[in-house]
């Protein structure tokens, strides 16, 4: 195997034109996969020496997070935490402190585990993936359109995610992500649920996003749960309807982490709890957030 550490996106794209060449960010999934017997590529391209891939920038309207940026840079960014506490909590759940020095939004997305914690949290914030294409350009897609199944994405050969774009939230917006794991740390989600809500001045939900992890081959956006929350004041009836919609959207597997029935039930429970937290956070952001 060969190792390359290019310093520009263009250089990386050129290297990726070679056959059986893959990119990596923190390698926290790649190395265990190779050790478990997955065939080694002929060459690996380390994206972490490209400044654009390891940066967190905020403009007036948008956050731009380099795809390979270690999640420690997200949990350590007070402004990002203030605007997207749920997203940062989800990113901070990936592995141990050791792993946090290497794990990234781009890696978590492109590893395409159905249980990836940061992916539902990106989806509820309508995050977009900027993808470098094989012809030297870029294209931008919704994060939810990247994974298509366990370990599989819509990225074409030669493509890689450069950065994640997330529009800054409107006033009175809050997000939350909850996951269920048997252990409190170092575990993989049995179910993950992300909810984001925007309230009007009276506390009525004007916009909502709900996304689930680990209950289907890919992240699941639950528009029926969103519809149940919009127009409500997050009362019991609306929360129960959202929970039921979330459970109905599940298509999970039975495995050692949880049965189909358990996952389906817990998806509703976590959706309800995450909606309450998101609502509280939105209410606390009474004024404009920027």
């Amino acid at each position: 195997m060969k190792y390359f550490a290019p310093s520009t996106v263009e250089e990386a794209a050129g290297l990726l034109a070679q056959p059986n060449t893959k990119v990596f960010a923190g390698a926290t999934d790649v190395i265990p996969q190779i050790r478990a017997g997955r065939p080694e590529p002929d060459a690996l391209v380390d994206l972490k020496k490209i400044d654009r891939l390891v940066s967190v920038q905020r403009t007036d309207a948008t956050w731009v997070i380099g795809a390979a940026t270690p999640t420690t840079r997200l949990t350590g960014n007070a402004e990002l935490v203030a605007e997207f506490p749920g997203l940062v909590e989800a990113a901070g759940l990936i592995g141990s402190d050791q792993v946090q020095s290497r794990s990234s939004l781009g890696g978590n997305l492109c590893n395409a585990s159905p249980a990836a914690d940061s992916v539902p949290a990106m989806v509820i914030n309508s995050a977009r993936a900027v993808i470098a294409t094989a012809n030297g350009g870029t294209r931008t897609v919704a994060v939810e359109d990247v994974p298509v199944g366990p370990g599989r994405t819509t990225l074409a050969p030669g493509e890689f995610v450069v950065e994640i774009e997330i529009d800054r939230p409107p006033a009175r917006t809050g997000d939350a992500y909850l996951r269920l794991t048997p252990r409190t740390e170092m575990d993989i989600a049995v179910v993950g649920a992300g909810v984001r809500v925007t309230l009007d001045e009276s506390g009525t939900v004007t916009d909502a996003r709900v996304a689930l992890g680990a209950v289907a081959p890919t992240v699941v956006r639950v528009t029926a749960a969103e519809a149940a929350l919009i127009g409500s004041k997050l009362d019991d009836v609306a929360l129960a309807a959202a929970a039921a919609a979330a459970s109905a959207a599940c298509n999970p597997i039975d495995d050692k982490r949880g049965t189909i029935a358990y996952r389906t039930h817990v998806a509703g429970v976590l959706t309800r709890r995450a909606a309450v937290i998101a609502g509280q956070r939105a209410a606390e952001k009474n004024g404009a957030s920027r």
Partner: protein
Amino acid sequence: MSRIQVSCTVNGDSVDFLCDADGSLLNALRDELGLTGIKEGCGTGDCGACSILMDDELNCACLIFAPEATGTTITTVEGLADGDHLTPLQECFLEGAALQCGICTPGFLVAATALLQHNPNPTETEIRYALAGNLCRCTGYDKIVRAVREAAAQMREASA
């Protein structure tokens, strides 16, 4: 296939070593540089026995390709003490019997050092979360947590 030359700083010394592109930093540190304090427990980032500081960030050396170390500054357990003068954390591990077989101890020492660098007064809960990436099958963790708290108290007193 020709091997790759890597130059970096390890425990304060400038070092060079040769590695394969797919070699782990863990194996390079142990086999090329003789730093056998760090251990391979799982090789997949679950156990923390190979914990190191790379550019002041806590990492598992088994999750790093050796060529990635180029230009970095690395601290292993061998670099914590000043000669024979152990750090307060190491003394507290000894005094508090915070180890039994010792395989996990280098990783715990490095991870706890990283914690105390940015949090000089951690709660028990904070210590347990910070050390969640380090597994110990002997002690039941209690003596490790107590040793870290005691070391933190001693270090705060010394710097007061």
